[in-house]
C-alpha cells in the first residue's frame, strides 16, 4: 500500500487527497438529500393517503345517504327510488375509484389483504369484500323490510369503510403532518367535515322522520335544539381550523394562492347553508307553531350536504396542492443542495487541478533541467533556468542576492537547482582545467622520462667505454709488468754476465741494446696507459654531464609531479629515487677520477723511473763501448740499478690494483645505471596510469557541456 502510494505521481496524490476530503462532504450531502427525500416521501405518503381517503370519505357520505333514502323508502316514501338509484350510481363510481387507487397504493399505504391481515383486521375489511357487500345491497335494497335490517346491511359497509379511513389516516402519516396549514386543512377535510356530514345526515334523517310523522313532541324539540347547538359548535371549530390554516399558510413555503382564494368562499357557502339549516332546526325546536314542508327542508338539508361536500372536496384538493407545494419545495431544495454541492466540488476540483498543475509543471521543469544536468548538458540547463521568470521571481535576481527570502518552495527548488547548476558548472570548469593541467603535466613527465631514458642510455654507453678501456689498461699493465720482468731479467743477466766473464763486451752490448729496446717498449706502454687514462677522464666528464642532466630532469619531473597534485605523488617518489641514483653515479664518477689521478701519478713515477734507468743504461752502454777499462765500475753501477725497478714494479702493481678498482667502480656505476633504468620503468608505468586516469577523468567531464 505504502509502496503503491509512493509510486503515485504528485498530481495523482493531490487528486487522491482531495477525493478523501470530498468523501465526508458527499456523505453529508447524502444525508441531507435523503432528509429531503424523506420529507418528500412523507408528503407523498400523505398525497397517496388523500387519494384513497377521497373515495372512502365519499363512500361514507354516499352510503349514509343511501341508508337514509332506503329508510325513507321503507317507511313508505316510494318517491325516493330514483334518488336511491342515482345515489347507487355515485357509490359505484366511488367504489371504482377506491378500487383503482386502493389497488395502486395498497403497498405504501399498507392496505393490501396481506397487510390488513397482519394488522389483525378480518376479511370483511378487505376492499373487495366491502364492494361485494355493496353490490349485494345495491341489488337487493328493495327487499329490505325493516329499519333494523336496513341499518345492519349498511353497517356491513360503513364499519369497514370507517376502519379503513382510520387505517389509511394512520399509514399515510396524516396526523403527523409537520406544517400547521396542512395540518388544519387535514383536520377540516378528514376529521371534522366527515364527522359533521355524518352527523348532519343522521340529523336530517331524524328531522325528516319527525316531519313525516306530522307532529313534534317536546322531546323532539329538545333534541332539535341540541342538534343546532352541536352544529354551531362544529361550525365554530371549522371556522377556527380554516382561519388558522389561512393564517399559518404563509409560514410554510409561502402563501398558497389557491388556498387563500378558494377556501374562504367555500367556507362562506357552507356557513350560510349551515346557518340556514341551524335556523330551521332552532325554529323547529323553539316554535311549536312553526312548520316546514318536507320538500323545503330536504332542499335546505340537501344544500347543506352539498356545500359541505364541496368544502370537504375543496379542502382536500387544497391539501393536495399544499402537499405538492411542499414536495416541490423540498425537491427544489434537494436540487439546489445537489447542484450547489456539485458546483462546490467542481470549484474545488478546478482549484485542485490548478494547484497541482502549479506544482507539477514547475516540478516537471525542474525534472527536465535535472535530466539535462544528468545528461551532462549544463549549458542548456542554465539556459532553461534563465528562461523561467515567474511573476515576481527571477533566478538571476536570487543568484545575485541570495539573502532575499524565498517563501515558495517551488522557487526555493528552482533556486537550489540554479545554485547547484552554477556550482557544478564552476566545479566542472575547474575539473576540466585541472584535467588539462594534469594532462600537460603527465605529458611533460612522460617527455622527461624519455629524455631520462636517453640520458641513461648515454651513461650506459659511457660506462661500457670505461669498462673496455679499463680492461685494456689492465691488459697493457700486465704487458708492461711482463716487459718490466724481462727488463729485470735482462738486467740481472747483464749483471751476471758482467760478473762471470767480463770479457764478452759485445754480448753485453747486445744485451744492453735489447734492454734499451725493452725499456722503450715499457715507456710506450706506459704512454698508452696514460693516454687511455686520459680517455677515461673524458668519459668521466661525459658521465658528470649525464649525471647533472639526470639531476636536472628529475628536478623538473618532481616539479611537474607536484603540479599534477595527488596524481603526481607516485612521480615525486620516483623522481627523488632517480635523483639519489644520479648522486650515486656522481660519487662513482668522483671515485674513478680519484683513482685515475692516483694511477696517473704512479704511471708518471714509473715512467720517470724507466726514463732514468734508460738514460743511465744508455750512459752505461756508452761507457761500456768507450771505456772498457772501467768495466768493473760499470758492472757495479748496473747492479746498483736493480732496486729501482722494484719501485717501478710497485707503481705498476698499484696501477693494476687501480684498474681493478676502476672495474669495480664501473660495476657499481653499471648497477646504478640499471637501477636508474628500473626506476624509469616504474616512472613510465606511473605516467601511463596517470594518463589513463586523466583520460577517464576527461571522458567523464566531457559528458558535461559547460557554459563559460
Amino acid at each position, binding site marked *: 500500500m505504502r509502496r503503491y502510494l509512493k509510486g503515485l505521481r504528485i498530481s495523482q496524490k493531490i487528486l487522491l487527497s482531495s477525493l478523501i476530503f470530498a468523501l465526508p462532504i458527499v456523505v453529508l450531502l447524502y444525508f441531507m438529500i435523503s432528509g429531503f427525500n424523506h420529507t418528500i416521501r412523507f408528503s407523498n405518503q400523505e398525497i397517496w393517503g388523500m387519494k384513497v381517503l377521497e373515495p372512502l370519505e365519499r363512500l361514507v357520505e354516499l352510503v349514509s345517504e343511501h341508508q337514509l333514502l332506503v329508510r325513507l323508502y321503507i317507511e313508505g316514501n316510494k318517491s325516493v327510488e330514483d334518488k336511491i338509484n342515482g345515489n347507487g350510481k355515485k357509490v359505484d363510481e366511488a367504489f371504482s375509484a377506491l378500487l383503482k387507487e386502493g389497488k395502486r397504493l395498497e403497498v405504501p399505504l399498507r392496505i393490501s389483504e396481506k397487510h390488513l391481515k397482519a394488522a389483525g383486521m378480518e376479511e370483511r375489511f378487505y376492499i373487495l369484500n366491502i364492494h361485494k357487500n355493496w353490490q349485494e345491497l345495491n341489488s337487493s335494497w328493495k327487499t329490505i323490510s325493516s329499519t333494523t335490517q336496513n341499518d345492519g346491511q349498511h353497517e356491513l359497509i360503513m364499519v369497514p369503510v370507517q376502519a379503513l379511513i382510520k387505517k389509511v389516516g394512520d399509514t399515510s402519516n396524516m396526523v403527523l403532518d409537520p406544517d400547521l396549514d396542512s395540518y388544519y386543512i387535514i383536520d377540516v377535510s378528514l376529521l371534522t367535515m366527515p364527522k359533521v356530514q355524518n352527523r348532519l345526515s343522521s340529523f336530517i334523517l331524524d328531522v325528516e322522520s319527525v316531519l313525516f310523522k306530522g307532529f313534534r313532541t317536546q322531546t323532539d324539540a329538545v333534541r332539535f335544539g341540541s342538534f343546532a347547538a352541536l352544529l354551531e359548535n362544529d361550525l365554530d371549530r371549522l371556522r377556527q381550523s380554516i382561519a388558522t390554516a389561512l393564517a399559518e399558510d404563509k409560514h410554510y413555503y409561502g402563501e398558497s394562492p389557491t388556498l387563500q382564494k378558494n377556501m374562504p368562499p367555500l367556507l362562506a357557502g357552507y356557513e350560510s347553508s349551515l346557518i340556514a339549516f341551524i335556523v330551521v332546526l332552532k325554529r323547529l325546536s323553539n316554535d311549536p307553531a312553526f312548520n316546514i314542508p318536507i320538500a323545503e327542508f330536504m332542499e335546505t338539508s340537501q344544500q347543506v350536504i352539498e356545500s359541505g361536500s364541496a368544502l370537504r372536496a375543496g379542502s382536500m384538493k387544497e391539501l393536495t396542492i399544499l402537499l405538492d407545494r411542499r414536495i416541490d419545495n423540498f425537491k427544489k431544495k434537494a436540487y439546489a443542495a445537489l447542484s450547489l454541492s456539485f458546483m462546490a466540488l467542481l470549484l474545488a476540483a478546478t482549484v485542485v487541478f490548478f494547484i497541482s498543475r502549479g506544482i507539477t509543471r514547475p516540478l516537471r521543469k525542474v525534472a527536465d533541467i535535472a535530466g539535462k544536468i544528468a545528461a551532462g548538458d549544463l549549458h542548456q540547463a542554465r539556459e532553461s533556468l534563465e528562461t523561467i521568470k515567474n511573476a515576481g521571481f527571477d533566478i538571476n535576481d536570487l543568484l545575485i542576492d541570495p539573502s532575499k527570502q524565498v517563501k515558495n518552495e517551488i522557487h526555493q527548488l528552482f533556486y537550489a537547482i540554479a545554485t547547484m547548476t552554477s556550482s557544478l558548472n564552476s566545479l566542472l570548469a575547474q575539473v576540466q582545467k585541472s584535467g588539462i593541467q594534469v594532462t600537460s603535466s*603527465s605529458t611533460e613527465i*612522460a617527455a622527461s622520462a624519455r629524455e631520462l631514458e636517453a640520458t641513461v642510455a648515454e651513461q650506459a654507453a659511457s660506462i661500457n667505454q670505461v669498462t673496455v678501456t679499463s680492461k685494456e689498461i689492465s691488459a697493457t699493465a700486465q704487458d708492461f709488468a711482463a716487459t718490466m720482468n724481462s727488463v729485470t731479467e735482462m738486467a740481472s743477466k747483464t749483471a751476471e754476465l758482467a760478473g762471470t766473464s767480463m770479457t764478452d763486451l759485445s754480448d753485453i752490448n747486445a744485451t744492453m741494446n735489447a734492454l734499451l729496446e725493452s725499456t722503450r717498449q715499457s715507456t710506450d706502454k706506459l704512454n698508452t696507459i696514460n693516454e687511455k687514462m686520459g680517455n677515461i677522464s673524458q668519459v668521466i666528464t661525459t658521465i658528470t654531464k649525464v649525471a647533472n642532466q639526470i639531476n636536472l630532469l628529475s628536478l623538473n619531473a618532481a616539479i611537474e609531479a607536484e603540479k599534477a597534485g595527488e596524481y603526481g605523488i607516485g612521480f615525486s617518489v620516483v623522481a627523488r629515487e632517480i635523483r*639519489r641514483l*644520479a648522486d650515486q653515479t*656522481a*660519487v662513482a664518477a668522483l671515485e674513478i677520477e680519484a683513482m685515475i689521478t692516483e694511477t696517473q701519478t704512479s704511471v708518471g713515477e714509473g715512467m720517470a723511473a724507466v726514463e732514468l734507468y734508460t738514460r743511465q743504461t744508455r750512459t752505461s752502454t756508452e761507457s761500456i763501448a768507450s771505456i772498457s777499462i772501467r768495466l768493473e765500475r760499470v758492472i757495479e753501477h748496473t747492479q746498483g740499478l736493480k732496486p729501482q725497478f722494484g719501485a717501478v714494479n710497485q707503481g705498476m702493481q698499484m696501477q693494476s690494483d687501480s684498474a681493478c678498482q676502476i672495474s669495480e667502480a664501473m660495476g657499481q656505476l653499471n648497477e646504478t645505471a640499471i637501477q636508474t633504468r628500473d626506476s624509469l*620503468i616504474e616512472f613510465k608505468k606511473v605516467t601511463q*596510469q596517470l594518463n589513463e586516469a586523466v583520460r577517464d577523468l576527461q571522458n567523464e567531464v566531457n559528458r558535461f557541456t559547460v557554459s563559460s
Partner: protein
Amino acid sequence: MNQKEDDIPMNCWREIGISGDFTCPRLLELVHCRNCSEYNKAGRQLFDREIPKGFLEEWTQNLTGTKETETLDTTSVIIFRIMSEWLAFRTVYLQETVNMRPIHYIPFRSNNVFKGVVNVNGELLLCVSALDLFESTRGEGRAPSGKTIYERMLVISREGERYVFPVDEVLGIYRLPLSELSDPPVTMSKTPTNLVMGIFNLLDKRIGFLDDEKFCQSLKRSCAH
C-alpha cells in the same frame, strides 16, 4: 667546500663506511652509505664543477626548440622476453618489476604453471610460470651478445588479482600505436595464439602483444586447480 662537521671526514665511506672499516655509527640505521645524506652531498660536489666546454652552446641551442610531448592515443606496454619469445603486456596492469627472488613451493598445490608464492614487499603473491603457460620452446634463449642480461620478475595486477611471473629480460616500457598491430600468423611458434592479440615489430624484434584478459584468465585457471 664548507666542512662543517669535523668528525666526518671527506669520502667517509672509504674510511668508516662500506668501502672502509664499517665503523660509521650511521650504518646501523642506513645499512648502506648510498642511503646517507653525506654520500649524496659528496655526489653533489660533482655538480660544483666548472661548466665543461661546449656545454653552454649545446644547451643554448637545445632550449630554443619546443619540448616534445607524448601523444595519448597509443598504448603503453612493457616488453619482456621469455626464452626466445618477446612479449608485450599493457603497462596499466603492471604493478612492479622486481629482482629475482626465491619461489616458495606449496605442497600439493603447485603444478607446472602455478609455482608457489613469492614475497614482494612483505606480501605473498602467487607466482606463475608464463613459460609453462605458453608451453614455449625449451630451447636456449638467445642472449644478445655484448650485453648483460638481468632476469626479472613482473608483478601484474588486474581486476584485483595479482600474479608474479619471472621473465628472462625486460626491454623496457614503450608506447605502441595500436594501428601498427597485425594479426598473429598461424605459424608463430607454439604460443597459444589465443593469448596473443597481435604482433608488432620494434627494434628488429617481433613482439607478441598479450591479450591481458585472456592471459589473466588462464593464469587464474592455472592457480585454481
